[in-house]
């Protein structure tokens, strides 16, 4: 499995991204994220948002943990939701308070309606990918 090899190779990078997780400030973005401000988010997207360091610890452990941070100037939050029908398996993701429709794939990866065809390892990665894709635009609330 080349994936596993790459994951090991990028373990340090993955840890760096994870370490930015709970910091409630715009500066929470890891160094690699600054590239996204320069409109060359291609590589930042692929590497920082995790095609290689797949499977956060949420895989096989029920709902992933909650998160709450400011990423590139947007507040992103994720948390288990009580009641209702959510395709994230009872987990909700919000950008500036508006719910982002997310879905968990059978292999534990995640997608959102803003990045539907490009799975990432966690709901936080889906929220970050959506922030990059939105370039400041507000989400349309789910109806």
């Amino acid at each position, binding site marked *: 499995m080349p994936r596993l090899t790459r994951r090991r190779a990028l373990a340090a990078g993955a840890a760096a991204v994870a370490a930015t997780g709970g910091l409630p400030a715009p500066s929470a973005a890891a160094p690699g994220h600054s590239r996204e401000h320069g*409109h060359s*988010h*291609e*590589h930042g*997207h*692929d590497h920082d948002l995790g095609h290689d360091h797949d499977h956060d610890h949420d895989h096989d452990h029920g709902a992933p943990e909650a998160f709450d941070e400011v990423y590139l100037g947007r507040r992103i939050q994720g948390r288990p939701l009580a009641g209702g029908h959510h*395709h994230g*398996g009872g987990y909700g993701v919000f950008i500036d308070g508006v719910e982002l*429709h997310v*879905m*968990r*794939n*059978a*292999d534990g990866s995640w997608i959102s*309606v*803003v*990045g*539907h*065809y*490009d*799975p990432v390892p966690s709901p936080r990665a889906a929220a970050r990918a959506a922030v990059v*894709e*939105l*370039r400041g*635009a*507000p*989400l*349309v609330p789910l109806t």
Partner: protein
Amino acid sequence: MTVRKNQATLTADEKRRLVAALVELKRSGRYDAFVTTHNAFIMGDTDTGPRTGHRSPSFLPWHRRFLIEFERALQSVDSSVALPYWDWTADRSPRSSLWAPDFLGGTGRPLDGRVLDGPFAASTGNWPLTVRVDGRTYLRRSLGGGGRDLPTRAEVDSVLAMSTYDMAPWNSASDGFRNHLEGWRGVNLHNRVHVWVGGQMATGVSPNDPVFWLHHAYVDKLWAEWQRRHPASGYLPTGGTPDVVDLEEPMRPWNDVRPADLLDHRAYYTFDTD
């Protein structure tokens, strides 16, 4: 009889007529109903629940019927129009004629991804995006911006070589032809093309970009090519599968058509290569 042609072979007049029919469907509001339907299935189809349009065996017949409906709408505007297909293994550059101003227009500008040329640029006033997941009302693209190339013919051939149509668990984790063509597993064909185009094509409201239809017309053609290579292989599953459309089960949202009714495209259209 409708003949679906390779987009690269269309005459200037064929391109002009197709564009005019698209713009007229948009003006009348009929276009956006297709975007709404697609996004409803994108959000509703799940690996562990009912799944019809995506991540399931019926991905292919569902999109075949969806495109037939759309093509009939185009033909109600101009009966000479057929959906062309985009062979992204051959026309794999943002410089392809597909993206010229006389057809779909090109990539978006770096600042905000906005498409600035062609008949679907927001500045024409002819292509307002009303079915959206975010606040932006203009067509966006970032052709090749994700840093991954379009699939190659060799990658397509490796998927066409898979003789089993689909396999349990009949979702994004499946082995077999359907899921490799859809792209949740393996070399990734269909999904990767959505990502390569970027903009709305990478979202649940991907039919906002007219290239959606040309992409899916080629995915549909690859299904036909697969059938020709594997005449003894049929649609699966054939019965009794929870949450999944079996061969003879009706498909939402039409409820009047089964995968079995859609296996032979020649009942509806032919390809220029047939």
